[in-house]
């Protein structure tokens, strides 16, 4: 409860920022000099070496038959590109990635909203709810997958053991093509929903309290207050969370790789894993790079489209 009442002084600065955003160019800026560049330089150096350079070099690889095992490298034109664009395994992994995204985004937005609403209303439990809902987010991916792999264990795990108590034979979870993706999505939601929850919670706490008081005086019940005040005022936050979750879900790899290795029968192999498999297992750097570029372009298109949609709503 004390969290809300205590508004530390510096916080007013960002508050006023959102009220009057500055453009990229500021009129009051001092005349041009080299000083600014010195400050920007260290970041630029890292950016150039570890991001731009690999991106350029990777693009170069796509036209070669370079192997991670070494050996002669020769220029092979667009062969890698045509191979990755016609490869049915590539499309399968793209579909798996998309399917994961379709399943996880709505779930992780709605769950976060529900949790934040509960926390916002059940204030006396605040610390306990924040602890429970956010704690999984700080777990290393391996810890998460170890725990869930153990619970999902078809014959010895908690889930099927509990179901067995009621005479129900549980599913195979991660070991069946039909259920593996759902199982991964559930575990991912448990693990990562905490961040969306936090964003929702922060947004809810910034809604002015007098709005609710006025509504309460007018006799609005809890549901009316949620439906007529909270949700409408969260529209921007919801859009933001959806965009971030979408981009995050499209980049999925680690937890699936650790839980199923992409199986059973490649039913959960994602694009990133396919890139990894081609480059680091198949040792074909060129092919892996062209796949990476196909995927990067798709992600950038999706991100830009989402951000445009989102900023239009905002404006």
């Amino acid at each position: 409860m004390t969290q809300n009442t205590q508004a530390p002084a510096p916080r007013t600065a960002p508050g006023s920022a959102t009220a009057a955003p500055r453009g990229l160019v500021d009129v009051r800026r001092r005349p041009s000099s080299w000083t600014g560049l010195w400050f920007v330089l260290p970041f630029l150096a890292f950016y150039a070496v570890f991001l731009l350079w690999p991106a350029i070099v990777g693009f170069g690889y796509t036209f070669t038959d370079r192997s991670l095992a070494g050996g002669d490298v020769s220029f092979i034109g667009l062969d890698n590109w045509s191979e990755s664009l016609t490869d049915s395994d590539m499309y399968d992994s793209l579909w798996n990635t998309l399917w994961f995204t379709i399943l996880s985004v709505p779930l992780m937005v709605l769950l976060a909203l529900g949790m934040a609403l509960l926390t916002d209303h059940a204030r006396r439990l605040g610390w306990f709810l924040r602890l429970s809902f956010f704690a999984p987010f700080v777990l290393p991916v391996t810890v998460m997958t170890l725990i869930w792999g153990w619970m999902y264990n078809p014959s010895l795990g908690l889930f099927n053991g509990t179901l067995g108590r009621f005479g129900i034979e549980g599913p195979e979870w991660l070991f069946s093509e039909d259920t593996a993706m759902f199982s991964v999505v559930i575990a991912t939601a448990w693990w990562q929903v905490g961040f969306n929850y936090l964003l929702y919670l922060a947004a809810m706490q910034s809604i002015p309290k007098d709005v609710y008081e006025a509504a309460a005086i007018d006799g609005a019940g809890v549901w009316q207050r949620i439906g007529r005040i909270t949700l409408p005022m969260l529209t921007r936050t919801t859009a933001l969370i959806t965009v971030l979750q979408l981009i995050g879900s499209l980049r999925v790899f680690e937890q699936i790789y650790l839980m199923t290795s992409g199986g059973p029968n490649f039913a959960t192999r994602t694009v990133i894993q396919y890139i990894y498999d081609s480059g680091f297992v198949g040792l074909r750097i060129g092919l892996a790079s062209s796949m990476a570029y196909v995927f990067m372009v798709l992600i950038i298109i999706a991100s830009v489209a989402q951000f445009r949609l989102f900023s239009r709503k905002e404006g």
Partner: protein
Amino acid sequence: MATSTPPVARTAQGPATTPRPTVPRRRRWSVGAVALYTVAALAALVWLVPLLWAFATSVKPEGETTVMPPTWLSENATLEAYASVLARGDVLRWTMNSFITTVIVTVLTLVICVLAAYGFSRFDFRGRPALFALIIGGILIPPQTLIVPQFVLMTQLGLVDTYWGIALPQVVAPVFVFILKRFFDAIPRDYEDAARLDGAGPVRVLWSVILPLSRPILTAVGIFTFIGAWNNFLWPFIVTNDPEMMTLPVGLGTAVGQYGIQYAQVMASAVLGAIPLLVVFLLFQRHIVTGVAGAGIKG
């Protein structure tokens, strides 16, 4: 919980100093409130089940871990599994590796992002808009798509299986430059004008004026960089082969095979792997929530 606590002035409203409103307040738990609290408490408990189950398994003797139907409490609770895992020594080694690389990443990220954001926020220079656009464009590139050329680069630099090799490629975070610049932009220039009149140079202004005013956002960026770097799996997984150099997530992922079907040990190692950041989270809980409110964007 506290059914004995009488007045439930459901404070949808702020400070305790506010005069009691004229609206009649319910003084007892209403049915709705009881239902709400029950649902909330149950949801939180359900959400804790995986953690509790991991812990419950980790303190069982191995023989009891596979008893069906599962039992939560063992009468023969033991720390044997922890002793076995710790005796191998590698978990501690990986924790140290994670700690070293994470500190490098966090410190470097904060320093170069703050400097860049300050440069972009307060100075004009040739090529500034183009450079800023270039950096912002980097937000769109998924780092995972660069693993192959990054690995080749690290091989050429001889940084495979080194702390720098693990840390350096994780340092570049264009999104933090963006967030910090937005925050710095919002700090009124009048504050610095006074300092500048006193003869403070740009570095001094950054250190004595800007940074103290930016504490919440710096804490948030720091915490999220720390969590991200600590939990990063893919890059450390690729750039380390030597088990001695692995970070905690990578080490746990590759070593579990050795434990075979000793589930208590597997869960004990999971719990050990969870503890460092759970502690960080408990210590910084408040800052995480307020920081997100200030930043509003994922790293």
